[in-house]
């Protein structure tokens, strides 16, 4: 049971309208694993998340999420949107923002006798993302990285088995990026599977167990070496691609040796 994958996708195609954003995509997500979901803007990273949540219909293939249909499994999944998608001058303090997710799918007001339990869950979530110091700060006074950590804490209060991080590094400075990556890595080590979408593989190169690369309406999953290489990326992009490794980082270029154009940086 423990080895059963959380997600098993075989030859899936999905998209909002009749056209599919991606096709023939196969991958598995193991419990407690860290998957880097990489691809250029518009490659369908968010659409894939929505497919896993049952918000976008499957056009082909089979998709089992925790052995069930996506719609029924989604209470065990948490989706974390980009911090920049939130409103900017929010007056609430961090703690209130995080606790708003607690049993939010239930109607009515929270019962006063559950207060202690909620408080414990929220404290634990804040501690997990190293944001206890943000509990009493107003959201409007926080940086992008601090907000991102609170968003992750909010996702944790419902005890998910899988957490989907949608471009959590966008618009962050390098120090804040490192911190978010180590928070996500810590979640995976605690047994919460992480799918981490990013257009640049380098920040998560050291921590990811597998790469799921989307480009040109297709996708491939595998170890970093299998995916971030000339042959796989050339196949995905449908044009000649070059990967150059330098100082433990990988740089993806489009084109022949003579005219290289950087991709996804």
């Amino acid at each position: 049971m423990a080895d059963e994958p959380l997600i098993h996708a075989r030859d899936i195609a999905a998209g909002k309208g009749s056209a599919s954003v991606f096709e023939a995509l196969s991958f598995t997500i193991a419990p407690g694993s860290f998957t880097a979901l990489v691809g250029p803007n518009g490659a369908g990273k968010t659409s894939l998340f929505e497919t896993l949540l049952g918000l976008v219909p499957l056009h082909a293939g089979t998709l089992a999420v925790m052995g069930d249909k996506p719609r029924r499994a989604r209470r065990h999944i948490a989706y974390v949107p980009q911090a920049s998608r939130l409103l900017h001058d929010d007056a609430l303090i961090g703690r209130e923002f995080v606790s708003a997710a607690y049993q939010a799918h239930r109607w009515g007001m929270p019962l006063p006798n559950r207060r202690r339990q909620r408080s414990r869950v929220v404290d634990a979530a804040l501690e997990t993302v190293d944001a206890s110091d943000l509990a009493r700060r107003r959201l409007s006074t926080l940086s992008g990285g601090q907000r991102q950590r609170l968003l992750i804490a909010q996702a944790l209060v419902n005890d998910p088995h899988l957490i989907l991080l949608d471009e959590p590094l966008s618009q962050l400075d390098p120090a804040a990026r490192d911190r978010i990556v180590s928070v996500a890595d810590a979640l995976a080590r605690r047994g919460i599977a992480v799918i981490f979408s990013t257009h640049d593989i380098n920040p998560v190169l050291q921590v990811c167990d597998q790469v799921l690369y989307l480009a040109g309406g297709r996708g491939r999953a595998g170890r970093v070496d299998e995916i971030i290489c000339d042959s796989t990326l050339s196949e995905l992009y449908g044009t000649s691609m070059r990967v150059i490794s330098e100082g433990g980082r990988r740089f993806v270029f489009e084109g022949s040796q003579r005219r290289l154009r950087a991709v996804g940086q």
Partner: protein
Amino acid sequence: MLPEFLRYDFMQNAFLATTVIALMGSLVGYFVVLRRQAFGSHALSNIGFAGAAGASLIGAEPMVGLLVFVLGAALLMAWSGRNVGERDVSVGMILMFSLGLGALFINLYSANANAAIGILFGSVFGIDASQIRWITITSLVVLAGLIALFRPLRFSSLNPDAARAKGIPVSLIDTLFLLLLGAASAIAVPVIGALLSFAIFIGPASAAQAWSGRVGIGLALTALLALGEALGGLVISYYANLPASSCIAALSFGLYALSRLTRYGLPISSLSRSSG
């Protein structure tokens, strides 16, 4: 026993109506501010003006016209766009069209222009017992709806994408909330006035959010401030012989200004901070 101003029936009715409207309207308003739908709230009250004028024209109860117009407009707004930015324009267009209709109805019903002034600026001392009943029943329905929606509404106001992913029906909750806001606006309009509904719906809530970053404390503070400003406005209006709506509006603005000053300091200092 009673203070002098409460010896009259019309004053008792005014106090009762204002108390109920202030509590209910300001609590709905807390979520309006949290969701940044202040423009929608303003528009809904003003659309009520057209409904009341239309009802008067055909000889129906103005409150019925208010409800029909405002709830219809709330549904239109809910369907007109998912994000706040794209909704701004459509809300403005619906408001513009309704005000045009309102102007037409008033023009056709030239017998009583005072009625129009009453709807636009409120006539709290003209509230009768049957209106009190309307106001109380509708307020209880709105508050019950707000309590029922509380948890999913709070979460989807703060993080709609994550709420949708959890399976929370975000669009449905948005529509239901706009309907609650519409019903709240419809009963507030005859009391505070279509143009001045901000005083109840937005003023207390935005002051409370400046003073507290917690939802529970914020809601309690909102209700208290609304009650204080509304009843205080009535008393001042009685003794100073000024229009009640003007007094309530002035107190609401005063509270708002005070909350900005205490939280952000003088506008001068924030200007120099942002330029430096």
